């Protein structure tokens, strides 16, 4: 019967999804448990900070600059209709600090650093490096996964802050230098409207959450990838798709919790 077959298909997928969430949670908890070693040997984390943080800097800075410039241009065109061009600074800063900074930086982080992590660990698995480590009594979660996890958590808020700061200067460049909005009101209205605790700190919390989610997804997909060329490429794609969707969904939930009523 086609109906029974369809229901069986739904049931199978649901069980599979719950099972995967369970395995991922166990993987996350194991990463936390075995973090001690990597936190004691900080050089491991520094090496990973280089490949996740420093290597993502260029894309973050360039994207931040252009997003800020577009915000400055579009914001000016919209605000001009209401004769309140002086509020351009507020619009650029709030847009970047609250939303675009954490979200766009996390999306770029997922596609730059997340996919690299998945591919690296997937390839380690395919070339049996992880099995070799286990044979030598080295815990692969403590040696490979945990340092990358902490590097992701540390670098994401810093990348988001750099993105927002560069973006504000991009908006300043277009709004004040190119178009000619008054410089004093650009900064002063921004400072009057942007609150450190409400806006900036909440943005940092957001990027912290995104950083941990993206890193866990990337590491889990890599660790769970079938050890074939096709398996690794599929896992890399899944990392980008799953973490991008997770970022956007979490962003809605976090925004609803943090900024409702403001």
């Amino acid at each position, binding site marked *: 019967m086609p109906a029974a077959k369809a229901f069986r298909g739904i049931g199978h997928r649901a069980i599979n999804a719950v099972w995967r969430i369970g395995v991922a949670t166990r993987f996350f908890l194991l990463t936390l448990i075995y973090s001690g070693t990597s936190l004691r040997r900080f050089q491991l984390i520094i090496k990973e*900070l*280089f490949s996740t943080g420093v290597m993502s800097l260029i894309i973050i800075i360039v994207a931040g600059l252009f997003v800020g410039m577009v915000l400055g241009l579009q914001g000016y065109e919209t605000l001009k209709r209401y004769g309140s061009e002086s509020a351009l600074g507020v619009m650029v800063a709030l847009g970047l600090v609250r939303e675009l900074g954490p979200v766009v930086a996390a999306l770029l982080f997922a596609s730059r650093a997340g996919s690299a992590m998945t591919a690296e660990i997937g390839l380690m698995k395919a070339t049996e490096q992880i099995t070799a480590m286990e044979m030598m009594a080295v815990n692969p979660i403590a040696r490979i996964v945990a340092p990358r996890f902490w590097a992701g958590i*540390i670098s994401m*808020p810093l990348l988001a*802050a750099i993105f927002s700061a560069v973006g504000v200067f991009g908006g300043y460049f277009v709004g004040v230098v190119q178009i000619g909005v008054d410089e004093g009101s650009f900064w002063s209205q921004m*400072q*009057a409207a*942007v*609150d450190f605790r409400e*806006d900036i700190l909440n943005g940092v919390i957001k990027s912290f959450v995104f950083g941990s989610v993206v890193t866990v997804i990337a590491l889990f997909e890599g660790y769970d990838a079938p050890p074939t060329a096709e398996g690794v490429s599929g896992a890399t794609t899944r990392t980008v798709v799953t973490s991008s969707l997770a970022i956007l969904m979490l962003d809605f939930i976090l925004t609803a919790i943090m900024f409702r009523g403001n």
Partner: protein
Amino acid sequence: MERTTLDLWVGIFVVGGVAALVMLAMKVGNLGTYNVSDSYQVQAYFSNIGGLKPKASIKSSGVLVGRVTDISLDMERYEAKVTMSLDKRYKFSKDTSAKILTSGLLGEQYIGLEVGGDTETLKNGDELKMTQSAVVLEDLIGKFLYSKAEEPAK
């Protein structure tokens, strides 16, 4: 890559990130401009506060002197009770009056303080006796239309 080069790059990255955060806090946010720790509280009652919100600024002669900390409805007077936190550096006379004003056409609402002539100054917990409510546009239009309707037809 050599370990020292790696450390250098990571160091630059971390310092750059922290500097960006500090820049956001100081230049974009209001952390460097206003400090609420040294302040005293005064209350004022308004019959209508319009769109005034907590954390709205309080200005005197256009200078920021404090922030609104709390807004509630007083159930004895049926008026809005606005608690303000004023900077300790600024002293105002007892007969200071408070007005709810709007900055620009589309701007936010804020409280403007106008100093009177009393020699005594406001202390923590005092109440501002003279207040002027927010101008509600619908009220104004209503009054205007009403006065127009009363005029004899020409």
